[in-house]
């Protein structure tokens, strides 16, 4: 903080901090509520697959589409809230961008809900060209156009967030390379070394900006094709754009949320998390890797160049290093024999590190081509992404919610039984997906063969448990909102 700050500037910063807090709390409240609804949709899907609930396949696929895009949306919204909340103490952020993004987000969401549940659009969150336009006469073109337009609005909103965060980082550190700590990493300079929160935010800006632009491009191309069907797109190009966009966007949500680990574990344990050169090297490696490994989603597109597929596999293996070796081990070291008493916030963060580290394992293994041959597009795929989203990302967001509900007092209080139950229900739920993948059950099937349904039935029970616990966390947060907003 600049010591030459005037009274007016200090007042301005207080107002900014206050309005930033208002939007962070609003973002987390919306994240919590939409999350619970999306979880219920997920439960309905598993119940249908279990044969316990009769849902028309057209409705199943609409629910599947809303669940996918809704979860990606709130993962991003919640991630932005966590990132903004902690980053704001290091750089000067303009809270007005949060307001603009939220408007675009909500309009986009309403558009997609109308397109999907009223229009019947059900091309999944991946909107893989040419499915939105070629539905076999199931949904009208207007529903595809409305859904894609809504998604475009949401994407533009997040792009504005990226640009604002990038601007703030550049203003504070002098450049994105400096925000990634390259002056420390390569030249061992200790001049204004960015804290972990800023390094993570820099990574997110650098990767999400091209990803959102690619996503916007393929959405606009799809819209052009919808309005003028004679203008076709190369489907392989479209698939590359979609999976580059999707892979980066969903990975970036964890990179935003993990800032909670870097910020809260030191406060809870009294031990520092320093920006070392190893830490910076890991984050620079992650930044590069996340941009180039999306071909691991296209390993079964045999027409892709073989070198791209081989790199997709090898780089996916290397991409596990920063998570497992640096962030995971670093978090465990901070906690090990730290003298802390486990409570809800510390246990949720502890679980989140486990979810992320363990969740990487089935993902990396599936990125092996010979494994992908028999596990791609089976339930193994939702198995691995639910592992690190349900058990990695969400506990990070819940931890911040509870932390804010406690007015940021890290003194341990109460038990952590709800967190342990969340882990147990969530882990068995995830294992049922992985078991389905082992059993070759295809993903995205509305109707399952009888021999697959045992996995679906156990998963349904576990999902219900997860929803109950998640509701407890969200209600704990919502109940304390008035107090949070009064805090400076």
């Amino acid at each position, binding site marked *: 903080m600049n010591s030459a700050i005037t009274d007016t500037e200090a007042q301005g910063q207080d107002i900014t901090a206050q309005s930033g807090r208002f939007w962070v709390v609003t973002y987390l409240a919306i994240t919590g509520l939409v999350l619970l609804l999306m979880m219920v949709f997920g439960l309905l899907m598993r119940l249908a697959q279990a044969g316990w609930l009769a849902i028309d*396949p057209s409705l199943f*696929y609409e629910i599947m589409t809303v669940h996918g895009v809704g979860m990606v949306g709130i993962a991003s919204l919640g991630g932005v809230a966590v990132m903004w909340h902690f980053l704001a103490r290091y750089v000067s952020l303009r809270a007005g961008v949060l307001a603009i993004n939220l408007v675009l987000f909500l309009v986009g969401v309403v558009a997609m809900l109308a397109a999907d549940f009223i229009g019947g659009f*059900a*091309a999944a969150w991946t909107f*893989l060209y*040419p*499915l939105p336009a*070629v*539905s*076999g006469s*199931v949904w009208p073109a207007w529903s595809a156009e409305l859904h894609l337009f809504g998604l475009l609005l949401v994407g533009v909103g997040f792009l504005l967030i990226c640009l604002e965060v990038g601007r703030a980082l550049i203003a504070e550190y002098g450049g994105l390379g400096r925000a990634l700590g390259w002056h420390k990493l390569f030249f061992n300079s200790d001049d204004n070394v960015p804290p972990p929160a800023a390094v993570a935010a820099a990574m997110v800006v650098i990767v999400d900006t091209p990803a959102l632009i690619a996503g916007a491009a393929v959405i606009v191309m799809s819209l052009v094709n919808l309005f003028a069907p004679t203008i076709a797109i190369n*489907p*392989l190009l479209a*698939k590359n754009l979609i999976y580059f966009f999707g892979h980066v966007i969903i990975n970036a949500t964890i990179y935003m949320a993990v800032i909670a680990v870097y910020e809260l574990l030191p406060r809870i344990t009294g031990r520092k998390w320093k920006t070392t050169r*190893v830490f910076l090297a890991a984050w620079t490696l992650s930044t590069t890797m996340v941009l180039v490994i999306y071909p691991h989603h296209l390993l*079964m*597109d*045999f*027409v892709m160049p*073989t070198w791209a597929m*081989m790199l997709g*596999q*090898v780089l996916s293996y290397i991409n596990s*290093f920063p998570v*497992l*070796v*640096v962030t995971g*081990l670093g978090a*465990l*070291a901070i*906690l*090990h*024999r*730290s*003298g*802390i008493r*486990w409570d809800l916030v510390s246990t949720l963060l*502890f679980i989140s590190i486990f979810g992320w580290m363990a969740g990487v*394992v*089935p993902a990396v*293994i599936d990125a092996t*081509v*010979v*494994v992908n*041959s028999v*596990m*791609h*597009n*089976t339930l193994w795929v939702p198995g691995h992404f639910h592992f690190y989203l349900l058990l990695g990302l969400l506990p990070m967001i819940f931890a911040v919610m509870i932390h804010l509900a406690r007015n940021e007092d890290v003194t341990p209080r109460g038990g952590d039984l709800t967190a342990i139950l969340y882990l147990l229900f969530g882990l068995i739920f995830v294992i049922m997906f*992985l*078991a389905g993948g*082992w059993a*070759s059950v*295809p*993903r*995205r*099937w*509305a*109707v399952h063969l009888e*021999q697959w349904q045992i996995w679906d039935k156990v998963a349904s029970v576990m999902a219900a448990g997860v929803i109950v616990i998640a509701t407890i966390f969200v209600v704990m947060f919502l109940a304390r909102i008035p107090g949070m907003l009064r805090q400076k």
Partner: protein
Amino acid sequence: MNVQSVTALVTTLVVLVIVVVFINIRRHAHEAREYAPVQGTAYRYRAILFWVMIVVGLPITVYLLRDLPYATAATAPEVVNATGSQWNWDLDKEEFTTGQIVEFNVTSTDVNHGFGLYDQNGTLLAQTQAMPGYINRLTYQFTTPGTYKVMCLEYCGLVHHDMILDLTVADGNGGSNE
């Protein structure tokens, strides 16, 4: 053991190791120690883990690149056109014999589909994408007689879950199908 079982086993073992580490951290967290020696030990583990992953992991991943499904057969295979459409599979032939090397030329007339070849036990044997305007060539040699299925593995709309085709494979030695 098939690929799926090896995958599940390796995943389980590695995740179990992670679980054991986490339980250990959990149990000892309240026993306060100075951070510097803890951090020193962590850095040593980190270095060991890093080098083990490099020395063991990288050769494994390079080794696993030796057997990719992208190459077409060296000896002249039987070429079978396999076309996905909303919502059925259309193959030049649906009866094969063991020992025959088949090259499925997979494409689509409309949206992306997934050509998933399953054996009689419901185990996925091989797959490739069916993309409009492209041909993905999947080479496979049936070794066991019986009824196989092609199931769609790329979400393609309303009847994605019912795009199933039976293939029969007879014993190539001239014996019975049993």
